[in-house]
């Protein structure tokens, strides 16, 4: 946003015109040459080539009996005379796409804007058949008109023709220039690395991004994490190009996307590792094994961002050196504590969108994992894919295959290999935005149900163990999916506690598990995750009746594989029927209980109620904490002057709801409830939030809850 910056930036150094030759597309050449002779037997026909950002989709009519096809590309001049050697740049075979009737191949790995001839031939068995007639076309120049301000910005990677990756300094200059020249973009610093590099995030909306994180959250944003492993920089370059497109493109699709949501792009969460070209951060910690633990400042910054901006969907970019995989291995959050709805919707995004669109555009999206029972893609909650799932965010891992493979040449780490990876990432992230745009109501429904499920503290706890990702029906696009990875018995807790209680030392004690043997306290990490905690006389209680119920035990239970502390399991105090009035002092946990009568909380008391029915009014005045999940209250619900957290999720209230003067610093949650009666909120120190999960209210909504 241009009013925010006055610093002079060396924008001229970022301009396309400085380095890049201007190549104009000569679309007159795009049509196939007329075939003067009838097709030979088994000759590929109907060859078409269509241009997109950094790749060309080659398509043809299948030849009966063909085992596979070779795609040949030759550099040509403006008169279509060859200037380079004809090269087979790819092999199409049936498992590349879910739809074999219309084969397509995304040819990438060339300098955008150059001109080529393409031909395709079938192989029957191993016997090569005649090549198709050639198609000549000029590939699409790097996005952005060199004569239009903003559009003409280019990254270091682009200006060096992929010989160099964009440096930290060039990233900061480029994103600052995008910010300065576009009203749609705000660059915010979400934290600093160990070496004090800024970690920036582009917040992109139309006509301007919403002003605050909460206002962004209200637009159900989507988030792309571009570069966690410092030596896997391909996705990051795509993110930087995509930021320019979102900032300066005026096409209807882009404006349509940005009018309806906010795009969050974190180009470099691991700036120190990127600068040093190491996988880990500067302490050697693999940050994608730290998103739950948040021992490092980089992961803590990302998790705080998730807490504040609440993206409903995400992608996490990587590269993958494995010559058995497809172009674009993907994987949903599989940890068994992830709500089924989030797993299902994530898999839907991968299989019913990415596989389908990949088959149209020629990219081989496929399951992550590999032949021979690979040990990757498992259930560590420390991995962002799983952390996001446990935070009820629909998401996927993305790998860009860096090696050669069965259907692409081995390019080493050359410029063309870098281009193939980056433009395949750009394709994926654009598809991700389209999926979010088209399926937002499904994503929100899945997220809402997941939050209600989790807040109800439903089901067993699994510390490690994955949901099975079934192989896609043949011709499935990968030979093998990820390993089954079911939980072992020692990783299961059937009888879930109601809460964990931490001692003062556990909660506020100094820790040594961060950089230079200094770690944030558990209290600070819990706050970064955004969990609700009740201060009680002898410690701190973290109830499971909250949206991140799947994640909490993994960090607070001694049975966890990588926990912070061994918190005390606190079990329910009432699970059966109680007739008559119930007065609560101290801590009460009602789980699957039925109370026939009113419930009153004494000052300083805490109530956690899940899967519980209360026939009568509930009145909490001056309580320490109030948690309702997946419950029913047949009568009015009054919560006033609570000096601690208030959360009411997935609960039916037959009567009015009144949330007033609750003074705990964080916003009360009031989400996914059904209220027959008025909903009134007033005087709470922070306005209640519905976490973008609407309540059904048969009555007026007033005060701080007027939009919930």
């Amino acid at each position, binding site marked *: 946003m241009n009013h925010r910056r006055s610093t002079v930036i060396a924008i001229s150094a970022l301009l396309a015109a400085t*380095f890049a030759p201007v190549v104009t597309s000569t679309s007159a050449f795009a049509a196939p040459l007329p075939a003067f002779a009838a097709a030979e037997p088994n000759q590929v026909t109907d060859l078409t080539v269509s241009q997109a950002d950094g790749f060309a989709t080659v398509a043809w009519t299948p030849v009966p009996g063909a085992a596979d096809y070779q795609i040949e590309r030759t550099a040509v001049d403006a008169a279509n005379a060859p200037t380079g050697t004809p090269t087979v740049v790819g092999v199409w075979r049936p498992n590349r796409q879910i739809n074999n009737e219309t084969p397509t191949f995304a040819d990438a790995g060339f300098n955008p804007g150059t001109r080529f001839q393409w031909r395709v031939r079938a192989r029957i068995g191993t016997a090569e058949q005649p090549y198709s007639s050639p198609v000549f076309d000029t590939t699409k120049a790097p996005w952005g008109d060199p004569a239009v301000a903003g559009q003409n910005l280019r990254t270091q990677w682009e200006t060096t023709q992929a010989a160099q990756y964009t*440096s930290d300094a060039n990233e900061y200059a480029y994103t600052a220039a995008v910010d300065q020249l576009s009203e749609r973009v705000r660059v915010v610093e979400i934290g600093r690395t160990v070496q004090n590099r800024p970690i920036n995030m582009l917040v992109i909306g139309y006509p301007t991004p919403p002003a605050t994180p909460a206002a962004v959250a209200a637009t159900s944003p989507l988030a792309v994490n571009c570069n966690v492993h410092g030596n896997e920089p391909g996705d990051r370059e795509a993110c930087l190009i995509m930021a320019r497109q979102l900032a300066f493109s005026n096409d209807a699709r882009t404006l349509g996307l940005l009018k309806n949501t906010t795009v969050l792009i974190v180009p470099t969460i691991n700036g120190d590792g990127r600068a040093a070209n190491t*996988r880990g951060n500067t302490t050697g910690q693999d940050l994608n094994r730290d998103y739950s633990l948040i021992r490092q400042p980089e992961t803590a910054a990302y998790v705080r961002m998730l807490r504040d901006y609440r993206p409903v969907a995400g992608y996490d970019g990587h590269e993958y050196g494995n010559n058995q995989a497809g172009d674009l291995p993907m994987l949903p959050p599989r940890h068994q504590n992830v709500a089924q709805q989030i797993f299902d919707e994530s898999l839907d995004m991968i299989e019913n969108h990415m596989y389908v669109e990949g088959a149209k555009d020629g990219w081989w999206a496929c399951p992550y994992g590999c032949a021979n029972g690979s040990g990757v893609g498992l259930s560590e909650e420390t991995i962002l894919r799983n952390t996001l799932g446990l935070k009820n965010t629909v998401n996927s891992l993305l790998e860009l295959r860096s090696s050669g493979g069965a259907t692409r040449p081995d390019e080493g780490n050359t*410029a063309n290999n870098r281009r193939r990876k980056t433009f395949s990432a750009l394709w994926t992230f654009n598809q991700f935005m389209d999926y979010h745009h088209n399926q937002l109501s499904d994503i929100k429904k899945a997220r809402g149900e997941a939050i209600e499920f989790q807040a109800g503290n439903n089901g067993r706890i699994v510390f490690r163990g994955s949901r099975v990702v079934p192989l896609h029906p043949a011709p499935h696009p990968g030979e093998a999916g990820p390993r089954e990875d079911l939980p072992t018995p020692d990783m299961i807790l059937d009888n879930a506690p109601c809460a964990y209680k931490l001692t003062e030392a556990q909660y506020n004690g100094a820790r040594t598990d961060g950089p230079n043997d200094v770690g944030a306290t558990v209290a600070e990490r819990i706050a970064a995750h955004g969990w609700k905690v009740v201060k009680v006389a002898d410690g701190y209680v973290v109830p499971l009746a909250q949206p991140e119920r799947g994640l909490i035990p993994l960090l607070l239970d001694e049975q966890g594989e990588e926990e912070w502390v061994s918190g005390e399991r606190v079990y329910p105090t009432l699970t059966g029927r109680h007739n008559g009035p119930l007065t609560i002092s101290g801590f009460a946990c009602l789980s699957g209980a039925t109370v026939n009568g009113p419930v009153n909380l004494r000052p300083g008391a805490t109530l956690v109620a899940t899967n519980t029915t209360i026939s009568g009014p509930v009145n909490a005045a001056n309580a320490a904490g109030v948690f309702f999940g997946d419950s029913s209250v047949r009568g009015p619900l009054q919560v006033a002057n609570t000096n601690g957290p208030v959360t009411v999720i997935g609960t039916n209230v037959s009567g009015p709801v009144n949330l007033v003067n609750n003074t705990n610093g964080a916003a009360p949650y009031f989400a996914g409830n059904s209220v027959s009666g008025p909903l009134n909120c007033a005087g709470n120190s922070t306005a209640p939030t519905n976490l973008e999960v609407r309540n059904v209210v048969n009555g007026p909504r007033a005060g701080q809850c007027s939009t919930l």
Partner: protein
Amino acid sequence: MRTRLLAVVMVAALAVAGCTSDEEPSTAAVSGPLCGELPKGDEPGNPTALASESVDQALQWITVLTTFEGALRASELVPELEGKKAITVLAPSDDAFMAKFSQDNLDELMIKDKDALRTLLRAHIVDRSLSLADLRDADSVTTLDGTTVKVSEADKMARIGDEATTVCADYRIANGRVHVINHVLGNFPTTAGQGDSGH
């Protein structure tokens, strides 16, 4: 702000190295099967443009040397190498590093075990300038770690030790030559394929 100042400087430096300029009259010829895939002609980072660059700058333009380049920076050996009258850098490609070391092992070397990293890198540097022809003519070279390595002809390339071959040879730099090779030299155990290097 420190970062923004840096940005201007960096971008300017980039422009100098990126432009294949008229000031560089001679064409530096490189040879080897991989050369065609590396910056060439008038592309940024072409061999002629690198001929007057220091070793650390030149390595930043040879796309298949990102691991070696990062390792050299991490080793803090650059001033020592720039101070030498002449050097030959036998630089293993990224693929060669990937075939040799696990990700964890590489991070360990680059972040925590810099003495070992320096030993590793010294096994890839000779303190005189040797062209491809010189390597093909020689019987052995002694690297900075004190090891004597056999060298010989291998088709049009040079064999270095038992396994490595030059794949793009004869990059000129300000004080010597860089040859891209396809295997890691030295006596380090192979750790590729071990440990958790998934996403």
